[in-house]
């Protein structure tokens, strides 16, 4: 497949981020909010990876982890590992899967030590979290982010020119005039009038602000941009403008996007591959079309059937999920979805299903699909959902 030739930009492996809960009399550590719990995803050059899930499922945290805006509890994010290293990584993580719960080298059993050692040296070379401050600062230019809220993402006391020029200043790119020239280019690139440069953010509409945000992200010619719900605060009529700009830029500059959104139809329109998250874990990942045409995981199916479709003529029978998402502070045992799952089985509440590749490129973590590539899991899925 062509994935082998297209090089990786960033690859996250077994990311975990726990936020401690303090409580009790002396505000001692009484538990963890498992925002992200063992997420692996990789983004290749020039492709858009969609990350969908309901609010509080940890998708935003994944994005911030992959830019090292927060440091993970465990796990690594590798920046541009070569193909051979990628292969080694896959092998190592397959070896280490049984010990996934003991991420640090000490507690792992002897047979895993070798693998862990090898992993460590790879990490020292490629992992974002092992990089020194200087190297990290240089990388910052390559890894950028566009935020959801266009109203708090621009400093109200800076004029647009300074906002967009700030990354350039930080990295000391060129002289002042060169910087402002670049700013003007960027403004053109995102389709804004250059004489907006002297205005303050509050003089712009949401869509314009979002484009300014994009311009700021582009300033340092990045390779990878995390788009954190870039359009969910915008109106549909403006949303399309922003999305199209993003697509254009990608085709021009071969950018890699991580497109985080809860809006599945936008994700479908934007991305090449999609990861579905539930309570801090990836439950299904596949190229866009297979995922949307026949989703495997019951949650994905429910999610898709829950999306309202702007067409009054068709009426579908939907899978109605009962109740709310459980709190990530106390995730249910076994499969985290079993409390709401329409196709729940006794095993679900005990064993946590692994994420296995049941079709080429199509991974799913569900007990309905115990068997890897070869057999026909979709039928099993249909029957299970129906019954």
């Amino acid at each position, binding site marked *: 497949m062509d994935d082998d030739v297209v090089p990786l930009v960033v690859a996250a492996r077994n990311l975990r981020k726990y936020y401690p809960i303090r409580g009790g009399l002396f505000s001692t550590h009484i538990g963890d909010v498992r925002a992200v719990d063992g997420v692996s995803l990789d983004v290749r050059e020039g492709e858009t990876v969609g990350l969908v899930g*309901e*609010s509080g499922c940890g998708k935003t945290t994944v994005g911030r982890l992959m830019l090292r805006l927060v440091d993970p509890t465990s796990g690594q994010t590798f920046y541009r590992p070569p193909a051979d290293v990628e292969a080694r990584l896959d092998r190592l993580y397959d070896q280490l899967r049984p010990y996934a719960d003991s991420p640090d080298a000490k507690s792992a059993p002897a047979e895993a030590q070798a693998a862990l050692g090898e992993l460590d040296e790879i990490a020292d070379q490629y992992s974002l979290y092992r990089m020194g401050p200087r190297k990290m600062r240089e990388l910052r230019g390559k890894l950028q982010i566009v935020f959801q809220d266009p109203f708090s993402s621009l400093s109200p006391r800076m004029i647009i020119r300074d906002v967009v020029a700030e990354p350039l200043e930080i990295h000391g790119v060129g002289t002042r005039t060169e910087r402002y020239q670049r700013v003007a280019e960027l403004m053109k690139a995102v389709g804004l009038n250059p004489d907006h440069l002297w205005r303050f953010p509050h003089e712009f*509409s*949401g*869509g*314009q602000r979002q484009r300014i945000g994009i311009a700021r992200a582009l300033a340092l010619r990045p390779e990878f941009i995390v788009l954190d719900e870039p359009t969910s605060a915008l*109106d*549909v*009529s*403006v*949303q*399309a*403008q922003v*999305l*199209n700009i993003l697509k254009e830029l990608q085709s021009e500059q071969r950018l890699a996007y991580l497109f985080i959104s*809860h*809006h*599945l*139809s*936008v994700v*479908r*329109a934007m991305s090449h591959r999609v990861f579905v998250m539930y309570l801090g874990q990836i439950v299904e990942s596949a190229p*866009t*079309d297979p995922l*949307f045409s026949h989703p495997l995981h019951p949650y994905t199916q*429910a*999610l*898709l*059937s*829950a*999306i*309202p*479709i*702007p*067409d*009054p*003529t*068709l009426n579908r029978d*939907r899978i*109605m*999920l*009962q*109740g*709310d*998402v459980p709190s990530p502070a106390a995730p249910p045992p076994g499969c985290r979805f079993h409390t709401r799952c329409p196709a729940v089985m006794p095993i679900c509440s005990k064993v946590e299903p692994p994420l296995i590749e049941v079709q080429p490129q199509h991974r799913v973590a569900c007990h309905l699909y115990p068997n890897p590539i070869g057999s026909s899991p979709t039928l099993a899925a249909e029957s299970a959902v129906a019954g």
Partner: protein
Amino acid sequence: MSASSRPVLPPEFLGTTDQSPEFPRDAPATATGDSNVVLDVRNLRTYFFTYDGVVKALDGVTFKLRRGETTGLVGETGCGKSVTAFSITRLIGDPPGRVMSGNVYYRGIDLLWGLDEEAKYKPIPKSNRVKVKRSFRKIKAAMERMSAVRGSGISTIFQEPSSAMNPIFQVSDQIGEALTLHQGLSIIDGLLAATPDAPEVGPAIDALIAAAIGGKREEVRAAAVRLGEAAHISSFATEAFYIVRGPGTAAGETRPDLVAALGRFRLNPLQRAFLRSQRRLVELRGEEHQLYLEEMRAGALQRGKHRAISARRSRERLSHFYYGIWGIRSRARHPMKQETFWRTVRLLEGVSIANPVQVAKGYPHELSGGMLQRVMIAMALSSEPDILIADEPTTALDVTIQAQILELMRDLKTRVGTAILLITHDLAVIAEVADRVCVMYAGLIVESAPVRELFQRPLHPYAQGLLASIPRLDQPDKELTSIPGSVPNLITPPTGCRFHPRCPYAMPVCKEQAPPTTLEGTDHEVACYLYKGPVVAE
């Protein structure tokens, strides 16, 4: 299981809201015209007077709500959807906002009667600001008049459920407040008429306990209802049901609890006296509301009657004074609180909440968004309103929760038959639940049509652009188009047709004057010069 498996509203509430024959529920909005129309809004104008100038948020909005029909109001941010919703019952903050002119006909009454006397406007020279001189006394009076309609006839649910509930009161208190406001009479009468010691109560209890031991949920429910009928108070059915479903069911140790629960209907003299005086106050409020409605219909104040009522009320208050003393009040109120609590629980069941008792006892910050939105809906429907205004009810919720809420609303539409005004920016939601759509742009309704009609052949360029710009799950490789430019600022809106700066078909005439609303086909109104149908309104 799906939301439709439970009764939506408890039977004993149907048609029990306190109201009088002069203004019957099935009265048409306007004396003349379609008797099916419950709300008739005619060129409503709402302006906001800010430092930067006069924001003409609504500039002549006209639409109708029909009985048992869901009308969707769709548009972009700042097009005035929510302002419309709030202007109908005058929930606009005043200052800075003001409903300037227009008529809202409801049960043959013009709700906005007397707007003109409320304020005088004086433009400030060489600035686009206007000096507003309000007569606060008149505005206060108008607000009081509105309280005759709010909640009881037209109730509203809001966008952000977690902030729309009062954080420091329990859910039961907040719904109970609405109940006492709109069903005070039936509650009090029910309490006074309860017969806890009737001979048939004993056997009913035995039957219930028998059913409770190993019985199915439905059987227990039926037995509880019978018990409630035996005691002549239906809310007791709910209480009894939850008592026997509680711990100790298997051994049937719940008899003492049931008997104790029955105890709350044995009113002591203090409580009876309290209830009676409470009843008198409620009656007075009812009369006052009737008077308000009467005024709004006749279009004339009746000061004499008001004086009479307020005099009686002050007398009542005087006699009611002792119940305000702390210890006494809590004691005297107890049965009433219990009653409202269990009615609340019943209502929460109605919106398919799995554990209504805990929810009723809980505080808003302990409940999830979806749960709170259900509570809000229950509260809004507690008074059996004719009209439910839902302002972006699902925007703050997740997709799966949104699906649940929409399901619930579809249900309510079929069962309760209230007219719903659904306000949203999401055309997909409209397509799911609405029967009619009104498309708003920059404070005006540019197109209104039955939902299928609109989605199949949108007429107004804006509606077309809007539909074209939605990414479709079912049409992945659809080219995403967008409407150029952005929403105009409403302080100095574009001349003529407000859409012309963004319109692909803009003609010279569009800049001169605003297009009239024309009728295309049977039921499809549009305001655009591209269409030459018969003119409905200027």
